[in-house]
Every structure is written in C-alpha cells, then in structure tokens.
C-alpha cells in the first residue's frame, strides 16, 4: 500500500472524529466509530502485508470482529433499549469546538512536535495527523456530556493511539495487540453494563446530573 493511500486512511480517521464532535444523533456517532474501526483494521492489514507475520492476520480478523461488528451492535442495542436517539449537546458551543479542534490540529502539526512526529521520516505527515486525532479524541471526551458518547470517544482515542503506534514503528509483538484488543472487548462489556445502570438509575445519561454524588 502506498503512502498517499495510508494518508487517506488516517485522514478518514481524523474526519470521523470531527464528525463525532458535530453530530447530534447517537446512532450516527456509532456509525462513525465503526467506520473508524474499519480504517484501523485496514491499517493493520497494511502492516500485515508488509511484515507477513501470520499472527497479525489473526489480529486483523479479531479487531474487525470486535470493533467493527460487536461494539456498534452493543451500542445500537443500548440506544434502542433506552431509546435515546439524541446525544446531549456538548459543553462548548459549535463554533468554539471547531476553533479548539483547529488549534489542536495546528499544534499537532507544529514544529514543537517535530521530534515526535518524524520518528519514521516517510510517515511524518501521517504521524502528525494521527497525533492531531489523539488530541481531538481527548477533547471529544472532555466535550461530550453524555455517557455513551464519552465511551465512544474513549474507544476512538484508543484507535488513534494504535494508529499512531503502528505508524511510529512501535509495533513489536502481535501478542501485545491481541492483549489490547481483548481488554478493549472486556472494557466494552463493562462499560455497556455500567451505562445501562446509569440510565436506569438517573433516567438520562447526562453526566452533570451526577453532580449530587459529589457531597
């Protein structure tokens, strides 16, 4: 696979994240997440093609099953069961969110992060884009009020980190990847149970309503 195609993939990843920021509907953000995961599996496929290590192929299949199929399925079932089509609005208004995203991406591409992004010189642009996507996903967690969208943003953060790791060449053993995927899977199970309990108890996923837990 050629560098421009990989750049395109990471670009898609970045765009899905931005889309997550903007979307109001939960279902759409779930879809965006599955697109994102599909991009990640493609990136794994690319590294499998390069290294030819059989384990990586198992890992690709496994991530594909978990992230692209199972996780969205869980989320959709959750949305339907508690019929919450609209995710609650974000903390910052739309224009300010966009400005912050712009600032973050500019920062990721800035000179300051050059030593980080050109660990592998050819992937310099990809790495800076992956770094930008890490920052944006982190900002997504902070920005979203609703529990489900926060879970999705955390998963997307994990995706962008994995992409960054692969392109930065930190990819050592496939077993590490399998381990990560496994605990992501377990994490999703727990998160869904947790979120369902919140909804049952609080009636809505809005995080601010949990303030009274503080005192």
């Amino acid at each position, binding site marked *: 696979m050629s560098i421009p195609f990989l750049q395109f993939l990471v670009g898609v990843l970045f765009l899905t994240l931005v889309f997550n920021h903007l979307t109001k509907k939960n279902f759409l953000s779930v879809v965006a997440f599955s697109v994102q995961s599909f991009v990640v599996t493609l990136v794994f496929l690319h590294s499998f093609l390069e290294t030819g290590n059989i384990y990586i192929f198992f890992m690709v299949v496994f991530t594909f099953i978990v992230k692209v199929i199972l996780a969205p399925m869980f989320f959709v079932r959750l949305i339907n069961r508690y019929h919450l089509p609209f995710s609650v609005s974000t903390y910052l208004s739309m224009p300010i969110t966009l400005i912050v995203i712009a600032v973050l991406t500019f920062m990721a591409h800035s000179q300051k992060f050059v030593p980080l992004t050109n660990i592998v010189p050819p992937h310099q642009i990809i790495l800076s884009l992956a770094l930008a996507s890490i920052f944006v996903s*982190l*900002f997504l967690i902070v920005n979203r*009020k609703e529990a489900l969208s*926060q879970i999705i943003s955390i998963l997307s953060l994990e995706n962008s980190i994995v992409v960054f790791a692969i392109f930065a060449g930190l990819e050592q053993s496939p077993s590490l990847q399998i381990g990560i995927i496994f605990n992501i899977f377990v994490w999703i199970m727990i998160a869904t149970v947790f979120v369902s309990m919140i909804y049952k108890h609080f009636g809505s996923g809005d*995080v601010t309503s949990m303030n009274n837990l503080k005192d």
Partner: protein
Amino acid sequence: MIESIVSQSGFFFLITLFVMGAFGSLFFHRNDTCANVWSSFFAISGSFFGVLFSSLTLLGGQELFFTFGKTPFFILAFSLHIDMLSSFFIFVISLIGLFCSIYGFGYVKHFYGKYSIGALGFLYNILLGSLLLVVTSSNALFFLIAWELMSISSYFLVVYDRNDPKNVKAGSLYLIMTYVGTAFIILAFLLAYKYTASFDFAVLKASAHLIPSSVKDLIFIFAMIGFGTKAGIIPFHIWLPAAHPAAPSHVSAIMSGVMIKTGIYMIIRLFLDVLQPIPLWWGEAVLIIGAVSSLLGVLYAMTEHDIKRLLAYHSIENIGIILLGIGSAMTFYTLGMPTLALLGLIAGLFHTLNHALFKSLLFLGAGSVIDQMHTKNMEEYGGLIKYMPVTAFTFLVGSMAISALPPLNGFFSEWLTYQALFQGINQLSFSLQWIFILATASLAFTGGLALTCFVKAFSAIFLARPRSVEVMHTKESSIPMQISMAVLASLTFIVGFFSSFLTHMFEKIGQSFTIFQTTSSFVSVSSDQHLQSASGFSFVSAPGLFLLFGIVLLCVFLGTRLLRYRKQKIACGNTWDCGTTLSPRMEITATGFARSIVLIFKNVLKPSIQQDVEYHDAESRYIPKSRAVTMRVENMYDIYFYRPLQKMIDGISLKSKVIQGGNVNVYISYIFLALIVALFIVL
C-alpha cells in the same frame, strides 16, 4: 561446631525460627494455650540462639557477607552484612527478646479469651525477626522493607488491646509519626542513591565522597528526622509516651528497650560509618539534641503519674544520653581526635546495652504491677511491697540502675559518657567547649532529676500504705514473670561487675569501624581489671567498688549488732503523725512528690493546677465535703508545633477542595492539559 553456627546458615536458621514461631502460632490460633506455648517456645529458642550466634561472632570477631536468593530488580538485593556493630545489636535484641518472651509466656495468660493469642504470637515473632533483619541488612531497600515490617507489627501490637479507645488513638498517632519518619528516611536514601547510583551500604560508603556537601547536609537532616522519630528525640517524641504504654507489657519492654535502639543503630551506621567524612556541625547538632532530649525527657517524666508513660519518657532521656556519647564521638572524629571519638562511641554503645537491660526490667516490673492492679495510675497504688516482694525488689534494682547509682551497670556507662564530655571540655576551645559544658550540665541535672523521679515512682508504687482497696487482694506475679525479672536484675549486677571486660569488648567493636581501625581508646582496661584513662585522668574499678561496698556494709551491720544493748526490744507501733489518725489519704502521692520540681520548672512545663471542692450543701459553702487537686501539664509540643501544623494542612486541603469539581469531564480535561504540558516540556 562454632563455624556452623557463625555462618550464613546459622543466621538463616535464626530467622526461620522466628518465622516458624510466627506462622505456627497463626496455625494454632483456635486454641489459646497451644498458640501461646508454641509462639513463646519459638521466641525463646530464637532469642537464645540469637544470643549464642551474636556472642560467638563478637568473640570470634568475624564479619559475614551473604545474600539470600536473587531478586528480579537489580537495585534490591537481600544482602546482609553482619559486622561487629550489628552482631552487638543482635546480642542486645535477642538478650532482651529472651527475657521478654519468658515473661510474656506468663503475662499473656490474662489475655486468654479476650483476644486471639495466635495473632499476638504471630506479631511478636515477626517483630523480633524484623528487628534482627533491620540491624543486619546492608541494602537500603531491604532495610526499608524490614523497617516497615517492624513498624507495622509493632503498630498492631500497640493496638492489640483494642477495647480501650485510648490504645487505638495512640496506635494511629504512632502509625502517622512512624510513616512520617519513614518518608524522611526514604528521601534520605533516594538523595544518596541519586549521587551514588546504588542502594548498597558498602557501595554508598565507598562513594560517599561523590555526594556534594549541601546534599550531604540534607541527607543528615532527613536521616536525623527519620531515625530521630523512631528513637524518640525531643521534637518528634510525642508518639512514644502514647504508644509504649498501650502495648502489652512484654511488647512495650521490647519496644522501648530495643526497638528505639534501631534508630540509634542507623544513626551510628550512617554518620560514623557510611557517610564518613562528615562536617563539624553534625556532631554538635547530635550533641545538642542529646542534651535537650535527656533534660526535657526527665522533666516530663516528673509530671507523669501513669507508670508506663513515666518509663516511656525515661526512654527518651536515656536516648538523649546515648546521643551525647555518639555526638561527642562524631565531633571528636571531625576535629581529628580518633582516640576520644572511640571513647564517645564506647560510652554510647555501653549505655545502649545498659539501657536495654534496666528499661526492659522496669517495664516488666510495671507490667506485672498493672497486671495485678488493672490500672496504670500510680495514685491508686501504694504499699505493694508487702504484697509483691520480688517485683518490688527487682523494680528497686532497676530504678537504682537507671539512676546510675554506683555498684550497678548504669553508673559505669554514665561514667564513660562523663569522661568523654570532660575530655571535650578539657581539650577544646571556646565555642565547642561551651557546647560540651552545657552537655555535661544537662547530663548532671538529668542524673539528679532521674534519681528524684525514680524515688517518686518507686515510693508511689511500693511504699507506704495502700491508697486503694484494689491493692489488698493483689498477689505476687506468676513464676515465669518473676524468673525473667530476677535474671535481668542480676544481669545489671553482673554487667556492672564485668564493666571493664565489656569496655574492652566495646573497644574491639569500635575498632571494627573503618574510621577507628588503628586507634586505641582513651579509656583502656588496665591489668587488674579497672578502667584507666590514658593520661591517668581518671580511673574506677568495678570489682574494687563491689568489694568495698560489701565489706563496709558487713562491718557496719556487725558493728551495730555489737554496740547495741543486749536486751533491746523492738516494739511495733503505728506511725507517729503528731497525734492525728493517719488515713492513707494523708501520705504523699506521686503528684505531691513532683509538685516542687514542677513548680520550679514551671515556665518549661507550664503546669496548671486545678482545685475543685465539693461542699455538703452548695448554698452555704461552709463545710467542704471533698477537695481534689489535679495537676495537668500541657503538652507543649501539641500546642506550639503540631496543632499549628495541623491547622495549616487543613487550610491547604480546604482550599484545594475546589479542584474536586465533581464533574467527570472536568477531570478528563485536567488529564488532557497535563498531557499537553508534559509533551511541551519533554520535546
């Protein structure tokens, strides 16, 4: 056979004895007597083997280096280094452990049914084992592990009698202070590690010169705070009078007889051995701390009427005296007088041994009294000498030894400390001379006040008439308790008698230090067994003193028998008190006895005397029914040091509560910001 004992397997066997004792007593925790027998048996055999092991290494003069199994981390190695100093401390620990275990075997019976004896046995053996590891470990991390083990096991022993809320409060205070101390110790070791890249004491010692002097001073301050808290020097002593009385008596005997000595061991090890070329002000600081601790320790002991708190304050006083010896050793060595430094070290070590002996004897005595009387308040004792003659006699011997009265061992170690301080005055110039003069003054006044305090303690407990009904039906403590107290009392005599031989032994221990390799001590042992200082400055002979005391006492006894009238009758009347009938309330109490001293030192102690009178009928207020005088001494440290500290910490924590927004998103944004800042700093 001796090689097999004094070797790695010997020490390993010693530790396994305690470990088996610990886990065995846990195993039997269902049945109290069986757990008690098991744990006491292993504690006694372990301590006995410890005494054997250490005396053989001391006499043999060997040094042992060995490490247990391999650990995954490269910096932590279970390496042990038993040189003469640590085998001396093993000797002290196991000697006191031996008697406390024998005593404990009898004493623990009154805990049957109330608390689980298995747990007590487990914690007790762990404490003894960890004490041994603390004094032998030569890797800082391994040392810290053993130190933690010791602190935790002693904490649980302090709160063992948990029905009394005071004990639990004392336990928590002890825990906080210990961990503050340990934090400082860890800081000191980290600083040392930063410049010498290793935690092993040997490597630390070799590369001590790499550490820049400003960092070395910092290490000194941290180590002094850390080990000072454990040893109980004055500003950090507040846990000691609270925690020691709370523990069961044989444990408080171990804690105050031996556990605070681990602080002293590390002070000696660090400042005289590992961090050697040390600046002058370290020695002076230790000297001043020793002087202040001894004087204030004995003053606070005067105000106490709880018997165990009184003994705990005396531990602080004796630690002060030991620090006087060590401080003078450090000062002399930096001034280039190794012979006097060796003398100071010998005095410190000798007083450590003596203090371990008579302090544990006194605590065991106090324990058997409390065991019978079920209260720690001295005002309710009185007249116990007629009900508990053996305990009374051993307590008398203990109090004579601790106030350094001649024939006993306390006198000879204090004599050596005096010689070190006299030489300080004699040979040093202005500012240093005045520090030594003040140290000698504090030692002199401490001796006098300690004597007064123990007259008060002994008379309030044992003499005169019983001041409460409880005294009537007390009976002598059980056989194992009496045996251990009697042997400890005779030990004070024996150590006193062989003090010159022991001084010779301490000289050999001192010479095992690298800094004292070639020096001979200022006070040497001359041919006919008496201590002789080099320039004939002073000499005293222990056997000579014993002989003189014995002969003259005998002659006086026979003389009066000769002089008195043959047909002399001795009638038995009641005490003459100018005709009034003497009720027990009229005799002097502990508070009454100490009142004059407390009023003399009132601006140091700030006593507050509160009189409350109860009248027959409140309106007329003519005929007072009862009048009570209570004298309370505010704990200066609480008011002026710890309470403001606490307020400051509360203030900060209140202000910092704002961060706790309660909103999940806010927390994640903190993480996000932290990440950005970190990246900025790193790249």
